[in-house]
């Protein structure tokens, strides 16, 4: 391994371009300031290394099998180049051509963005994780292989990177070392969007070469379109789960609440992650309790895709993205609802309200909104009877990037927390300048080989540091604390982070959504809704 990497090294054979040593990682606050508190990064087995291309950083997110012949290698490179042309064409990529071109053509390489990237900083500033590294490699490949520059000009412009199977395989893995949080884009004085470039590399690989993490494609969007949900929950299973949740609501609160399914003409179609049904049913239960108390006319759908708001297409593939959100609005249209309301899922928020906006036309353009303003209305206009003393423990708020920086919903959730949590405190920075949880762009559901270990120790490190810092004065495990994360993906990542660092035992920090805190403060519910039981 070389002491100092240069861009060209992306195409040079090596066992591994970088080595990640725990001592080089960004330091964490007490009680994780001791080296023995840092779990070692999981290493790949030799068998995995032999089978897959892992020479970028010894971590595998996609796991591209090594080619068996020279012909296979050449075909791969050709396909990549053909995809590259499509990515830069009006017909195939009208969806992002303008933002992508601007980001490719005008980076001044001032490196302002680097300090704003949590992955780069957390990793101890590993060169390959710098936001501009990946983009610059991609840019130079385009310059040399698409614009047909001579060797001399390539040297002068720095575009002398050799394109080979190895280069592409490493670049593909590198596109999955960015959470698409777009903090770098926010920091860039010119507006260069390295997050978008990462996404477009992923898209090229998926839409032309059929390469994507299994959790996104086969087990994600394909399963969702086939079975109904990326979790594998079928329509039939959903009904049993709903009945189970109704029973649980009664058991916890004494309230007999029916969760409406496929109610035609309801005011609201409520879309939430199917992941909640399995991992955090209390979140959907809390929504049901609130809607019931406020007299809201709502329904959920049991139709294929209609009960799972997730849309992993957002992270890697425009076609799958469109197929899923079209299903969602078609279901809403069939149910004749007035609007679609999005539960605590960040990327579903951004997809439905922002990204899908310029695809939905005519009757399909059904109003779509976040649940947060509605919850704010119910809490702050005293439409629910709440007692903040029931939430008298330290609470902090995690800002999901998709909801906050990428959609501008910043204050409703804060106004609620200020109202119902007397010990609410902010992380720094927060709001639109927040840090990603580290599980963004689908990382939270990626369980390939040693990727989860990388995700917890590097991509989630900055968020973990923020959580520890905000609770430093109450860090003792004798005091229970709550991280409010109104996003399913972020909750998943925080759960994994806390498991990885054994936070529940060491610091007694719990996590959950926003609605659980609202229901926990409801005066007509005798027992605390939040159970403080680690799962």
């Amino acid at each position, binding site marked *: 391994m070389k002491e*100092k990497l240069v*861009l060209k090294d992306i195409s040079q054979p090596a066992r591994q371009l970088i080595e990640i040593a725990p001592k080089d990682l960004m330091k964490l606050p007490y009680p994780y300031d001791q080296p023995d508190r840092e779990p070692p990064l999981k290493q790949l087995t030799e068998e995995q290394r032999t089978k*897959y291309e892992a020479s970028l950083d010894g971590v595998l997110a996609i*796991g591209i*099998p090594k080619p068996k012949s020279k012909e296979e290698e050449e075909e791969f490179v050709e396909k990549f180049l053909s995809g590259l042309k499509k990515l830069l064409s009006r*017909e195939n990529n*009208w969806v992002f*051509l*303008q*933002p992508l*071109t*601007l980001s490719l053509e*005008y980076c*001044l390489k*001032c*490196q*302002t963005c680097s*300090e704003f990237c949590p992955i780069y900083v957390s990793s101890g500033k590993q*060169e390959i994780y710098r936001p501009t590294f990946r983009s*610059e490699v991609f840019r130079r490949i385009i310059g040399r292989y698409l614009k047909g520059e001579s060797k001399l000009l390539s040297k*002068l*412009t*720095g575009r002398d990177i050799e394109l080979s199977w190895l280069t592409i395989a490493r670049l593909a893995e590198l596109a999955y070392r960015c959470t698409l949080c777009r903090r770098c*884009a926010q920091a860039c*004085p*010119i*507006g*260069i*969007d390295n997050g978008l470039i990462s996404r477009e590399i992923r898209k090229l690989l998926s*839409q*032309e070469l*059929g*390469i*994507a993490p*299994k959790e996104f494609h086969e087990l994600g969007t394909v399963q969702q379109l086939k079975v109904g949900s990326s979790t594998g929950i079928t329509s039939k299973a959903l009904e049993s789960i709903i009945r189970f949740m109704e029973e649980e609501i009664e058991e916890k609160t004494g309230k007999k609440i029916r969760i409406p399914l496929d109610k035609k003409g309801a005011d609201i179609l409520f879309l939430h992650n199917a992941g909640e049904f399995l991992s955090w049913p209390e979140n959907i239960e809390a929504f049901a309790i609130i809607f019931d108390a406020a007299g809201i006319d709502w329904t959920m759908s049991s139709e294929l895709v209609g009960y799972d708001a997730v849309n992993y297409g957002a992270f890697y593939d425009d*076609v799958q993205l469109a*197929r899923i959100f*079209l299903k969602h609005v078609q279901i809403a249209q069939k149910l004749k609802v007035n*609007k679609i309301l999005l539960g605590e899922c960040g990327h579903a928020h951004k997809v439905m*309200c922002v*990204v899908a*906006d*310029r*695809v939905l*036309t*005519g009757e399909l*353009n059904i*109003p779509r909104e*976040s649940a947060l*303003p509605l919850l704010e209305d119910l809490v702050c206009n005293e439409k629910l009877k709440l007692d903040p003393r029931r939430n008298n423990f330290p609470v902090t708020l995690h800002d999901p990037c998709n909801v*906050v*920086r*990428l*959609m*501008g*919903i*910043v*204050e*409703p959730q804060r106004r609620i927390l200020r109202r119902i949590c007397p010990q609410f405190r902010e992380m720094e920075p927060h709001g639109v300048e927040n840090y990603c949880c580290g599980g963004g762009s689908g990382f939270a559901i990626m369980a*390939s080989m040693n990727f989860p270990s990388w995700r917890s120790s590097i991509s989630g490190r900055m968020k973990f540091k923020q959580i520890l810092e905000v609770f430093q004065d109450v860090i003792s495990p004798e005091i229970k604390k709550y991280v409010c994360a109104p996003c399913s993906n972020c909750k998943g990542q925080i759960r994994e982070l806390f498991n990885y660092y054994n936070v529940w035992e060491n610091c007694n920090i719990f996590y959950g959504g926003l609605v659980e805190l609202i229901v926990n403060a409801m005066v007509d519910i005798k027992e605390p809704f939040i159970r403080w039981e680690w799962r």
Partner: protein
Amino acid sequence: MWLNLICYASILIFVFGFIAKARKYATMPLHLRWELYPVAHEKKRPYGGSYFEGLNWWRKPREKSLLRDLKYIGQELSFFREYFRRNRGFWYFVYPFHIGFYLLVLWLVLLGYGAILILSDLSIAAHSLSTWGRIIYFLTLIAGVTGFIIGAIGTSGLILKRVIDKELRFYTTPVDYFSLLLVLAVFVSGLYAWYFYDQTFSIIRDHIKSLFTFSPPVNMNPATTTFLVLTSLFFAYMPFTRMMHYLAKFFTFHKVRWDDEPNLRGSKIEKKVIELLNQRVTWSAPHIQSGKKWVEIATEVKFPSETGGSK
């Protein structure tokens, strides 16, 4: 006369290059929304909020503030606020570099204006009988000299920073150094020509007058000629480099980062979207029906048997 031809060619290349670049970005197809908050024109939510914070937002009138938009642009153009806030070390040089460039452009405009006044029989000099002639003379002098000095300091700083700072050096190409050296050469040669040959800028003003009248340049000296050739080269070269980022920044901010315009039924956006959805797509992964229209591909699901990623 060859000098005049170089100047004309430079102006033409710059103008056409600028128009071509602007046209390229302005005619790109409508893209999906990809905004990033804070959005400058948001009126009541300076913390970075959006209209999505309002219940039933589509029923409410949108409140946009042109003033806030202009305020942001003004702060950026005059102070380079983003660099000041986020990369102070770079700002110390990038700011004088740009101020030097602004002053260079202002100086050229004042020279051109002065040349027109001379053609209208007004004297541009320190002791001109016309007050306006004296004002233009001194403004030109100040803009030129301070521009050359500040610009040269900023450019030298940027070059040094790129050479010394490992983070920057790693990504800087020979072409990037060439661009900066060319700008430095413009500032330094301008300063040299002024100090040694043309302390009133009358020679260069006369030259600009000759450009207006299509007549041969008069009283030229090697230093001023060198400066003019370098400046012409710079303006002809600029449209083909990253130095056009000021144009790109306009599109990046107004057409991407701050483009939060919702697609309402019956709107112009909707019309454009319908056209775009009817384009044919040739992506060829197994799950895509290559050759069909966007709208067909999105509505007819194809299940591939397998993709390349492995677990």
